[in-house]
């Protein structure tokens, strides 16, 4: 039996998994899956495919991916969420700007082999304090959280990781988006 710790009084956390999937010949689809602490789905939101806009690409330059994924697709998704997740998790660095729009810490959990995608080559992100910690051997980057909150976030992340690897809910999102596009296309 586990010993009660300083976080045992906390209510069960909910987790929002947000990502953007590229659907061939259609564009970029965003998905937000909010799950319980044991991974059961509570809410799911997805966008219709959004194609890149050439004018925006030129005008936004290097900031375009962050604009499209974070400010547009991410914003549309979090706007629809009825429940504010305790922690928001993404596997997509370009979606990080969404943290400006939601009052929840944002974790960036990259695939182990995806270290090349580390934000700013592992340097603090944009001066906003992208902290990181280890959860079950995986490095997780944290944004939008104060140092005081970090321990609780780490605890929640660790509890979830005992149940499921972080990449698992993203698999569900990808399958659901694929399914939805198939169904909607055939309708």
């Amino acid at each position, binding site marked *: 039996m586990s010993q009660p710790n300083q976080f045992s009084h906390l209510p069960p956390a909910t987790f929002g998994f947000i990502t953007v999937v590229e659907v061939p010949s259609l564009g970029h689809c965003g998905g937000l899956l909010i799950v319980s602490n044991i991974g059961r789905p509570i809410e799911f939101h997805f966008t219709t495919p959004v194609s890149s806009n050439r004018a925006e690409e030129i005008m936004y330059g290097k900031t375009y991916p962050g604009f499209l994924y974070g400010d547009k697709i991410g914003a549309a998704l979090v*706007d629809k969420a009825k429940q504010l997740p305790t922690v928001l998790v993404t596997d997509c660095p370009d979606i990080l700007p969404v943290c400006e729009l939601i009052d929840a810490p944002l974790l960036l959990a990259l695939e182990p082999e995806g270290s090349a995608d580390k934000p700013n080559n592992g340097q603090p992100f944009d001066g906003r304090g992208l902290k990181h910690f280890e959860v079950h051997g995986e490095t997780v980057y944290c944004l939008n959280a104060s140092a005081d909150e970090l321990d609780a976030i780490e605890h929640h992340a660790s509890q979830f990781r005992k149940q499921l690897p972080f990449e698992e809910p993203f698999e569900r999102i990808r399958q659901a988006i694929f399914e939805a596009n198939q169904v909607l296309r055939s309708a």
Partner: protein
Amino acid sequence: MYHPNQIDWNQAIADAQSTVELEQSWRSELVELPPVVSAKLGSRRIKTTSFFFSGDTDGSDGGQFQTGSVFEPYTNSTDDSGGAASPNQQLAKQNQQASQQRTRIAPPQDVIKLEDRLFYLLQPPLENLLGGKTLEFPFEPFNFQYAGIAFLFPRQSAILADEMGLGKTMQAITTVRMLLRSGYINNVLLICPKPLVTNWQREFKTWAPEITVAAVQGNQHQRAWHWKANRAMVKLANYELLTRDEALVTDPEHQYDLVILDEAQRIKNKGNATSLVVQQIPRKRSWALTGTPIENGIEDLVGICEFAAKGAVTSGMTPREVRVAVKDLILRRTKDLVMTDLPPRLMRDAELALSPDQQITYDVAEKDGVMRLDDMGDELTIKHVFELVLRLKQVCNFDPVTGTSSKIDRLKADMEEVAASGEKAIVFSQWVGALEVIGKQLPQHKPLEYHGRIPSRQRDPILEEFKNNPNRKVLLMSYGAGAVGLNLQFCRYVFLFDRWWNPAVEDQAINRAHRIGAAGSVTITRMIMAGTIEQRIHEILEAKRELFKEILSDGAQPGRRGLSRDEIFGLFNLTTPTGKIVPKAENVPPEFGSSNAA
């Protein structure tokens, strides 16, 4: 250079005015403003679609279940005993070591609404649902069993047709457990053959101890009370009760969330009384469990589908059409496919010669019998041939006059070896009388009998005695009583003293011992008297067995498994001076194709 006093201001103002006019004219004629294109950035609206799911969010039990005895989850167990781990445990370890398996619940084809399809797709993998703190198991299920659970879970209509011994019972119980837990179902009716009721109760206790199970039994008043009572989550009834309690079980006021038929081949004849009752039971979900969905032909599947998915398979469909129709309805796995770690099944055909007494009796019986059949001419029916076959088979077992038997001599010798190696054996026969004779010939092995003449309540203690008493070396079973549902995997030897008509029934008998948890290789000895009717039947059955392997595999053509009328007649060369006898059309005696053995 001009001095200010020298400027003619009047002239200058006049000139300036003309200059401005000139410029205006020039501008308007020569210099157009460049066109400006404005790009609206970031103004696109993005459409979203949202789904909200209800259910518990904290992973607690929700208070619906009172957990009884709690098993340690396998992943926490350690093997400090030094004893050999069971095959289940061994495989579970391999599972753990292998890359993490994720079994997802795929929505069935008949789930159309996107919301419903996404509901299934967005569930966490089964391994996590089952491995969580709310569901604990005595053993980690095999990967293919997770797949079976994922198959059953979302389906309103399903036929789980795994080969015997792959754990259909466990898969069904686990899925029922999950559905009850998640609140998708509240009441279940499980119908099985009478001898298996206690087996199901045992299995529920093992795999889902918190689920309340009540067997419908007793006299008419007691059964009426059981049918009406709602105190248990699962009601267990046997097929034999259904026709007697038809009004109660088909009461439209009492709808079941799920009805499961075990050994569903019992309703393969869609017109028989039991099938008709089963079809009328008010229910939302219909699952059929059977190791032999096709025993004799496609019609068997039509019968099962009348319950499981009415109209999915109909008479007259071609094999190709059937295959397409059942693609999303039936899940079948064979041991060869999934149980690469299961100990081998060693088939041994003991071709024996009749004893001299048997040979004389056999020759006379065959000659006289065939002559009689020939004399019948057009009056000959399949029943007459069948009677002769049975007579000859009995002679192959024992000489009716002297009682001599090559088979019993061989069995005695083999049993000495079995007993000497500390092992146990099961002997199957078609006839209870033959089993009783065998029993008398093997007193040193303290045989136990398990057949249709043993009352149901005495059967479980017999199995317990056989399992636990090291002096009890042999169990004598009839195909009918011992062919299905029993777990005797501690036995490493099986003898088929005589042959059943249908290889599916023989396979079920063999699989009492050769199943998950088998202690080692299982040796099956099929006794066949050379040059007799048994050998002719054996050859036909072997051809059928090969054909059946193809029935549910891709690209195969479904066919018949039992003996057809022509095959039965073909056992003898029946002719008249005018040519080959063409038998009168008549129903095949049920014993030829059926699993309803004595």
